[in-house]
């Protein structure tokens, strides 16, 4: 290595050193530590006690809260992920039309994504108020007697789902960028060939958008498994554990009852679940995600 190259290498490491320190201290180190912690009993007060796989055994065989938390979180994911995808996509198609005032709409629809989730949750608690809330008023206008939302074991979770859907504009903006990257000549050619708007959507828009959809799906997936603040503030997991999200359970165990080892085991299980589902999505991607570059390679 020449003197100059060595000098550049040293400077390179100096430049990335903040991230390297952060990686060791706040990512790699804690991941390893939480794996070890999950094999101990530790309430912070006394020294950690090695218990092997006991935490995991207890979680899997004798923990109703774990099953409930898993059920709530999975239900939320299964219902909201497709909804976010479809509605976000529909919204982005609208936002992609060449229309006067479109910049205004784009700005507007993204707003919920930048607002503090605490304030947004407060607002929706009030909107969902069973007796004086706006939603039940609007429902009464069409002759439906609204449920008691966050006070009802049956409707609390759907209420939180609706709250989440209010932020659908965040995803739409990302789809929009994908839409705008589709070369216009494809549409022109299809139109001359007589393809109607429906066919153009299925044959051009959707295939060329699949990389963006894929990326959003992975991000949403990870985020969905981590829902915390809304349920912590609006329902505290209730009523009757109807909104007992997995993150809430981790929080309660680790920071409520100070069972750090058990909390770490719960966190690891959730992480493995997320990892497994993400891998599944990745493995499925060759069947539905379209990459222009790969296609060209095949054609050549």
């Amino acid at each position, binding site marked *: 290595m020449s003197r100059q190259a060595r000098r550049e290498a040293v400077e390179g490491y100096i430049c990335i050193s903040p*991230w390297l320190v952060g990686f060791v201290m706040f990512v790699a180190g804690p991941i390893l530590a939480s794996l070890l912690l999950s094999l101990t009993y530790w309430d912070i007060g006394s020294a950690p006690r090695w218990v092997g796989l006991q935490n995991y055994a207890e979680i899997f065989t004798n923990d109703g809260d774990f099953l409930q938390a898993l059920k709530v979180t999975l239900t939320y994911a299964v219902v909201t992920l497709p909804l976010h995808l479809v509605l976000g996509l529909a919204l982005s198609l609208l936002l992609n039309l060449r229309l006067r005032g479109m910049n205004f709409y784009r700005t507007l629809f993204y707003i919920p994504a930048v607002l503090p989730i605490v304030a947004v949750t407060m607002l929706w608690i009030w909107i969902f108020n069973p007796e004086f809330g706006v939603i039940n008023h609007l429902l009464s206008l069409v002759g439906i007697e609204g449920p008691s939302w966050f006070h009802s074991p049956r409707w609390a979770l759907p209420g939180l789902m609706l709250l989440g859907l209010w932020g659908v504009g965040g995803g739409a903006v990302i789809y929009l960028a994908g839409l705008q990257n589709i070369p216009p000549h494809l549409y022109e050619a299809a139109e001359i060939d007589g393809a109607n708007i429906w066919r153009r959507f299925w044959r051009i828009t959707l295939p060329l958008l699949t990389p963006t959809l894929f990326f959003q799906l992975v991000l949403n997936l990870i985020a969905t498994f981590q829902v915390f603040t809304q349920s912590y503030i609006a329902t505290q997991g209730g009523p009757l554990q109807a909104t007992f999200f997995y993150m809430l359970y981790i929080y309660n165990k680790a920071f409520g009852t100070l069972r750090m080892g058990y909390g770490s085991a719960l966190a690891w299980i959730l992480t493995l679940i997320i990892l497994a589902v993400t891998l599944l999505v990745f493995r499925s991607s060759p069947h539905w995600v379209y990459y222009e570059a790969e296609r060209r390679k095949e054609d050549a």
Partner: protein
Amino acid sequence: MNVDSPVTQGGGWLSQLRWNRRVRGRVVSFSAHFSMILLSLIFLIPMFWMLSTSLKSRAQTWLFPPEWIPNPVVWEHFPRIFEVAPVLLFFQNTMIIVFWNVLGQVFSTSLVAFGFARLRFPGRDVLFIMLIATLMIPYQVTLIPTFILFKLFGWINTFLPLTVPAFTGSAFFIFLMRQYLMSLPFDLDDAARMDGCNTFQVLFFILLPLCIPPLVIVVVFTFIGVWNDFLGPLIYLNENTKYTIALGLNLLRGRNRTDYNVLMAASLLAVLPTLIVYFLAQNKLIGGIASVGLKG
């Protein structure tokens, strides 16, 4: 040939197509405007409801069916916020944390991204892949050990756990910044070095002034993210006097479970700074989110 009236012309296929397009264009644009306005209402009504409740009298608040327009307009809920809880202190705390985060992120993101984008060193590409991989790590798996680490440092109930990590950069911003730096011509570096700049002068005097667009995104996202964060302050701050605005809002609700006027007025105050920052930067912001969204 008059392309606007194919009927009188008996029209060629081309004029027919253009005419069809024009009519269809009007129908599409009308229905699009209509659905846009309808959708806007879904986004606007809740916001309006917040504003309206914060300005209503108590008597008017508890009416069913609800009334949309405050009558009379009542301002007293806003001063009330500051009597119920030390909200000014919450604002100040949040601003301090935001300030250090913005500073830390801008500094470390620039430095690290520059290293990855412009300098050659062994292991660079592997390290960069690791950096991208950290984007996928769910935060809860590092949450508990990080808490314990900060507890060992004696940093619980200080702002340090909420500010110091910003100085190690965030993978998302570093990635964004690196992509941007890669798009700048290397001739800039070479010319500057020829004129006697050292590596860090190249970064700070030549490249960074050209990096305003991604830096705006770093600043704005950091501001909004830190301002809105709830879990971090919830775990690390346990004294009222240290609370951030997000925690303070929750405190306010705990004390006045049914006082929605004050609660909505306070929510409005909490929302306002992010809204202002968002509107100031929205053009660059939406473009930035989009570009990152695509590259992943």
